[in-house]
């Protein structure tokens, strides 16, 4: 691999793939971020259901985490992208709509990865809730706090602190699993790497570039999560 040629290839010149790769990296970031926020929403609902007194709610949440932690993400993506559009179009035909109905690749990616990550997020949040020392909750009750005030002042902030490291892991997982969305043709990093490799017949150069792009994204976001953890720990005393 000659280095000068490599930098021309991935650079921003007229024959360089730089702007395509940058756009792909931003797309990976965008789809990962929206999948992560979706997973937070699913996780919060899932954890609340698992901690609920109602048995059917707990069973539903149990079914959700069992199913989505138990099947491959790729299968979920295929199911939504191809199966979903077929089901939607069939439904549309029933109501007199003759054309094609379907979710776009970005939506499918967000939803599929978000649902799977949400199942892990559920367990992270549930675990964080149980890590709160029971004495703190009893103390809150003893001073007459209602459920909402307790959530805002005690259980919410305390659980967030315990959940953050786990959420950081889920984020890294989402970032890497976003690569699977490439099968829908969404121009994120892996798809762009594949396009570049197939178009130029220089697979090694492009795979190495993809390696560093993902590593840059995971490392940089790792710093952000570490910063957030330090912030929530600011009032804690750690054993020296």
């Amino acid at each position: 691999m000659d280095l000068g040629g490599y930098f021309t290839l991935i650079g921003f010149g007229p024959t360089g793939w730089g702007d395509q790769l940058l756009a792909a990296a931003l797309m990976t970031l965008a789809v990962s971020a929206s999948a992560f926020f979706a997973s937070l929403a699913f996780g919060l609902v899932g954890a609340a259901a698992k901690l609920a007194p109602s048995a059917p709610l707990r069973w539903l949440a149990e079914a959700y985490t069992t199913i989505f932690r138990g099947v491959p993400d790729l299968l979920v993506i295929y199911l939504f992208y191809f199966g979903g559009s077929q089901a939607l179009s069939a439904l549309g035909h029933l109501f007199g709509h003759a054309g094609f109905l379907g979710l776009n690749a970005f939506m499918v990616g967000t939803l599929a990865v978000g649902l799977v990550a949400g199942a892990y997020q559920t367990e992270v949040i549930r675990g964080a809730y149980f890590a709160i020392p029971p004495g703190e909750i009893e103390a809150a009750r003893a001073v007459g706090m209602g459920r909402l005030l307790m959530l805002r002042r005690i259980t919410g902030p305390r659980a967030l602190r315990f959940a953050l490291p786990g959420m950081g892991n889920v984020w890294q997982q989402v970032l890497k699993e976003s690569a699977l969305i490439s099968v829908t043709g969404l121009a994120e990093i892996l798809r762009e790497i594949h396009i570049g490799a197939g178009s130029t017949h220089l697979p090694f150069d492009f795979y190495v570039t993809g390696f560093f792009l993902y590593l840059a994204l995971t490392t940089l976001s790792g710093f952000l999560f570490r910063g957030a953890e330090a912030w929530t720990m600011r009032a804690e005393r750690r054993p020296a």
Partner: protein
Amino acid sequence: MSLPHPLLRALAGAAALALLATPALAKEWTKVVIATEGAYAPYNLHAPDGKLIGFEIDLANDLCARVKLTCEFVAQDWDGIIPGLNAGKYDAIMDGMSITAKRLEVINFSRAYTRSPTTFAVEKTSPLAHMPDTGKRVSLDDKAATEAAIKELTPALKGKIIGVQIATIQADLLNTYFKGVVEIRTYKTTEEHDLDLAAGRVDAALASTSYFVSTLSKPGGDKLVLAGPLFTGGLLGQGTGVGLRKSDPELKELFDRAISEAIADGTIRTLSLKWFKTDISPPPSS
């Protein structure tokens, strides 16, 4: 059809009425969305600025102008490109896709616009570089010739590892004629088996000559050489065509007419020489 619920039956009736009200039974095509991989040089690829280029892009522009269609390309991964067509995400596939009996079970094809033989690529220094029948055309429609060729190749290929792209006619060829003789290793993409060929992890790769011509012209390609017979016909199909839904016979008619014209006036030959450096246009009568 029996629908269980009276409400559903009423809805289906309303839907049927709505369909009857629009006189679009024989569909008038003006705009066609064509799916391609954009990563299968030189059939279809991306330029560094992100633009789709390639033999099939040029060809589609020519064909669509001939029958007054507005054509638009979407880039789609090879995996799931057929389900996407049947799900209605786009109307046609042009992705170096070979017309085969198996694919004809689920989709329809236009007449062929290229016909490129299948052959092996090996390292120049490999003993397989001097495989029997190198460069000889073998039609799999000709049973005697096929059997003779397989018989000659079997001792040379015994125990070798052959790389091939998964779910392709080349993979079918290996499974049908060389199962138990060679070790077949399937790859998601053709450049993955090229990589393993260069790394020495496979002894040979099997793909269409039109693809290998471009591999050989790329960096590292000078270490490779084509070997073995040039297979055509039989399970390799009739060449590559435009993949279409079975429910769109009008569109097939348009593409068939345009392709026949483009073969007859030499347009496909010209484009083939431009992109493949070799003529892989099909014979006019096929």
